[in-house]
């Protein structure tokens, strides 16, 4: 049975991804700060903060002992703060960078070690269209995802020798808690900048990730795929 690690699997996109890959026959190792919200015989939850290095190393150790190896990693856990730069405290900046950048990095590092013995291993990171669109009010969130994109491109080169592909998906707004606070007029203005002007769906993200995870995608690495026609 193949093992996929999905961060931020308690709710939102991460939970939907976990449910999708469970249905697809994968063993899922999920994590989030809170307790699990999925009950399934092939679902294993780790309550941790993705930026807590020791906790992630312990999770990797447990996965290695119990399942031996990891075939895929989806670095989905992420937080945002929609606010004008002049109203953004440094504490918020640090929290966003810790979760989105440091967390993504630590998971890539630790899980890549568990992917060394597999052929066709896959890492998919999460970015957002807020970065290419240079969205006002999302300076730190977008900057954190710009860092994730850079990490994706460089790791794709560093991990190629281990036969691990590293790519990223950049969703448009999708109705989850992450964007609950965004006012309606801001959302309308944002959608109008997409080629296809509708809200995204979790199935749009799953489709992109299925493509990256496919065995046939072993020549595709270092790529960022934005949804909704944003480039």
């Amino acid at each position, binding site marked *: 049975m193949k093992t996929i690690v999905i961060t931020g699997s308690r709710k939102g996109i991460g939970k939907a991804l976990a449910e999708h890959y469970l249905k697809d026959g994968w063993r899922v190792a999920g994590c989030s700060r809170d307790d699990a919200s999925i009950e399934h015989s092939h679902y294993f939850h780790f309550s941790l903060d993705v930026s807590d*290095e020791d906790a992630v*190393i*312990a999770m*990797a*150790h447990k996965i*290695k*002992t119990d399942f031996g190896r990891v075939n895929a990693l989806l670095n989905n856990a992420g937080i945002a703060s929609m606010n004008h730069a002049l109203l953004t405290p440094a504490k918020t900046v640090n929290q966003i960078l810790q979760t989105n950048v440091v967390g993504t990095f630590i998971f890539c590092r630790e899980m890549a*070690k568990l992917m*060394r013995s597999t052929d066709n291993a896959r890492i998919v990171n999460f970015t957002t269209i807020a970065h290419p669109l240079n969205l006002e009010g999302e300076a730190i969130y977008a900057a954190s995802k710009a860092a994730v994109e850079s990490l994706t491109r460089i790791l794709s080169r560093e991990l190629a*020798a281990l036969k691990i592909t590293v790519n990223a998906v950049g969703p448009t707004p999708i109705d989850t808690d992450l964007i609950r606070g965004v006012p309606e007029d801001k959302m309308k203005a944002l959608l109008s900048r997409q080629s296809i002007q509708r809200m995204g769906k979790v199935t749009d993200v799953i489709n992109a990730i299925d493509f990256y995870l496919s065995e046939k995608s072993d020549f595709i690495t270092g790529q960022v795929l934005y949804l909704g026609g944003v480039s």
Partner: protein
Amino acid sequence: MSEKKVIEALIIDLVKLLAEDFQIDSLINPDATTLLYGIDGPLDSMALVNLIADIEDAISEKFSVSISLADEKAMSAHHSPYRSVTSLADAVLERMPS
């Protein structure tokens, strides 16, 4: 055998396997003093990454503890802990819970 010798022996075995995998002739018969990485060391960064991960794995299997050899201490050390078998064994010992 002292604990250091046990760990050196474990690292030597892993270096031998790595030498086969990466076809590094100078590492086919390593001993504790064999240079691995840095000045006069034959490992490139990819081979080093593999060796470090192999050592972390082997330590976790043998002693049921997880250590990370790529920590701040290693980065800031005056002499790289990756330079030889014996310096790696010291680095492992330093990171093992007592």
